[in-house]
């Protein structure tokens, strides 16, 4: 219990928060500053990676557990930010993200299992680390392309549909992808697929930061404005000359490509793939992350990924309680408690922890409330807050009803 907090929770929280604060500084920063922050990021990741060993940061001997948790948090951050681009920014109701992750994971795993060693041999002059990095980078490129193509194939027909119909079709595609993979014997079928472990914490961390930076820049670009306009009002966006179908497919393809990247990292860190890892409950988990953090908020998605990954592990540490002759193992109830926390969060804070706002150091500098008479239609970034408008509309409807 104590070693859990010393060895796992504290280092994980410290590392995540350092990187988090650092990366929020990237928001609205100049390119030079972004580059400088990225270099510092990678330096931190490198040091953490070097410090990691089975003995752990403090020699309690459960270091591989905390390393694993950190890697899974990072992979979940990639998944959450990429799904946030589709669901939160573009407003398309996709609940099949695990399918694209599976495509990326299996495509890259097939590549590394088949060609990994020969490529490593031909890059042997770069040393062991260098040559395995080359294989991983090629695998990531392949997976991103294959997952993007899958996103395109799923996206073009699906995006004629709206709302819940789109949701169920994306879910259906994800399940079909999973069942098709389950029936391909070349990637292990039902017995699972053993994959070489090319990825480590450093690579996962680097790609997490790359994902955050790219998606953040997309959101801030003119493409991002078009995507937000589709979320706010598709008809109005179309009337203003936004090619809604094209932008929706773009968001879908980019989101899927990054889900594919997450799949590669998962496959090559976990060293074993089974289609059970990509069931629809996995897609739901990613949705839960972005909704808990706050739909449409990048920092919210990151926060959600951290919470959803850490919470079950923290609850695992719950003590046993002896009442009379029976012992209640609260740790066995961890998923029940997790579900309860989820429901309560939705009841008490339906817009998620951050809402559509972004967490940043600017919070410290800027007055939180706009002065009277300068009410704007958007948040501090100028992005219209759909949730607030919707809440206001509902409130006025309610007032009218009573």
């Amino acid at each position, binding site marked *: 219990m104590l070693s859990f907090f010393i060895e796992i929770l504290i280092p994980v929280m410290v590392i995540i928060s350092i990187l988090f604060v650092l990366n929020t500084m990237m928001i609205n920063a100049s390119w030079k500053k972004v580059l400088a922050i990225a270099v510092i990021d990678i330096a931190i990741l490198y040091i953490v990676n070097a410090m990691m060993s089975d003995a752990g940061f403090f020699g309690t001997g459960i270091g591989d557990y905390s390393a694993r948790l950190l890697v899974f948090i990072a992979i979940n951050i990639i998944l959450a930010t990429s799904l946030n681009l589709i*669901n939160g920014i573009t407003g398309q*109701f996709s609940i099949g993200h695990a399918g694209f992750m599976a495509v990326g994971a299996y495509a890259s795993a097939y590549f590394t299992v088949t060609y990994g060693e020969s490529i490593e041999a031909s890059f042997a002059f770069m040393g062991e680390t260098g040559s395995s990095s080359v294989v991983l980078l090629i695998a990531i490129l392949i997976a991103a392309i294959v997952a993007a193509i899958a996103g395109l194939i799923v996206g073009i*027909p699906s995006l*004629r*549909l709206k*709302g*819940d*119909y789109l*949701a*169920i*079709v994306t*879910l*259906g*595609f994800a*399940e*079909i992808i999973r*069942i*098709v993979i*389950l*029936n391909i014997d070349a990637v292990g079928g039902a017995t699972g697929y053993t994959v070489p472990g090319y990825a480590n914490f450093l690579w996962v961390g680097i790609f997490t930061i790359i994902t955050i930076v790219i998606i953040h820049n997309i959101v801030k670009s003119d493409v991002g404005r078009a995507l937000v306009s589709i979320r706010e009002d598709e*008809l109005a966006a179309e009337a203003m000359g936004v090619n809604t179908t094209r932008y929706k497919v773009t968001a879908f393809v980019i989101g899927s490509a990054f889900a594919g990247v997450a799949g590669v990292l998962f496959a090559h860190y976990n060293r074993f793939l089974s289609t059970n890892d990509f069931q*629809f*409950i996995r897609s*739901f988990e990613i*949705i*839960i992350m972005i*909704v*808990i953090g706050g*739909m449409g908020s990048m920092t919210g998605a990151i926060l959600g990924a951290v919470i959803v990954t850490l919470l079950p592990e923290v609850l695992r540490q719950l003590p046993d309680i002896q009442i009379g002759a029976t012992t209640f193992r609260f740790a*066995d*109830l961890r*998923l*029940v408690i*997790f*579900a*309860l926390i*989820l*429901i309560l969060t*939705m*009841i008490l804070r*339906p*817009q998620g922890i951050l809402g559509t706002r972004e967490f940043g150091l600017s919070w410290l500098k800027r007055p939180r409330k706009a002065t009277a008479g300068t009410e704007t239609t958007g948040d501090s970034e100028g992005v219209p807050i759909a*949730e607030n408008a*919707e809440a206001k509309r*509902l409130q006025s*409807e*309610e007032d009218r*009803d009573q």
Partner: protein
Amino acid sequence: MDTFVQQLINGLTIGSIYALIALGYTMVYGILRLINFAHGDIYMVGAYAGFILATSLGFAANPSAIGFVVTLVGSMAIAAAIGVAIERFAYRPVRKFSKMTTLITAIGMSLFIEYLFVFIFSGTPRSFPQLLQNDSYTIFGNATISTSQMLIFGVSIFLMIALQYIIFRTKIGKAMRAVSFNINSAKLMGINTNFVIAFTFAIGSALAAAGGVLTAQYNPKIEPLMGILIGLKAFVAAVLGGIGNIPGAVLGGLLIGAAETLVVGYGSYIGIPSTYRDAVAFAILILVLLIRPAGLLGSNVQEKV
């Protein structure tokens, strides 16, 4: 031909169960525009409620028609109460919020029920007692139909007719239709919408529980996670028929049940191995939605500006 009839009987048996569960999905969606992901778990709760009733009241030892009816009605009542409680404590507080919030609440509820049952009953499957003598009857040459299959057909047809009666011939049914048409106008007309919504959850949950007990008679293995996949397929059936549309849910359920069994039986002739069984429902759904975006019987509502 005989095997075809046999496959069709088996398919329609599963299809009837899908239809019973799909009805709950479609009614709740029709009224609240909420995908109640916990509905598949209510089916599981129904099966467990039946299991507890049957074993504690001693129906398991000596099969009788009374025992079956008491178990069925009892588990339907228990599930209805649980459905109402879920609506009251989880869905009502989030009803006014965005779609995503309600969806996550439903997913949270589903996880809650599943893992609570894993905690209470452990994950190991249990064997549901046989409440009626299970005989086989030969029809159409060599095709056979068992008592439990006939029960599934009989009870589901009875329940569907009863549902049709409630919705189109009673006052509460009229209120349900009004609320599903426009919840705010219904409120203005003096309809107690909260009661109507609770009633809808009660009926939907009771139907799912009936599906649970009937399935347990046909295939006696019950476990806490049994509702996930069947719930998802029933939801697909509801969307296939046109979500919010009651005959559509029945049609979708029967269609998916029949298609699944036929793919297992004959798919290998056209190059689809039987392992693709679970993908069939989704493939049909995607094909149908591409041609008819609102489902088979659903009407496409044009967005007004």
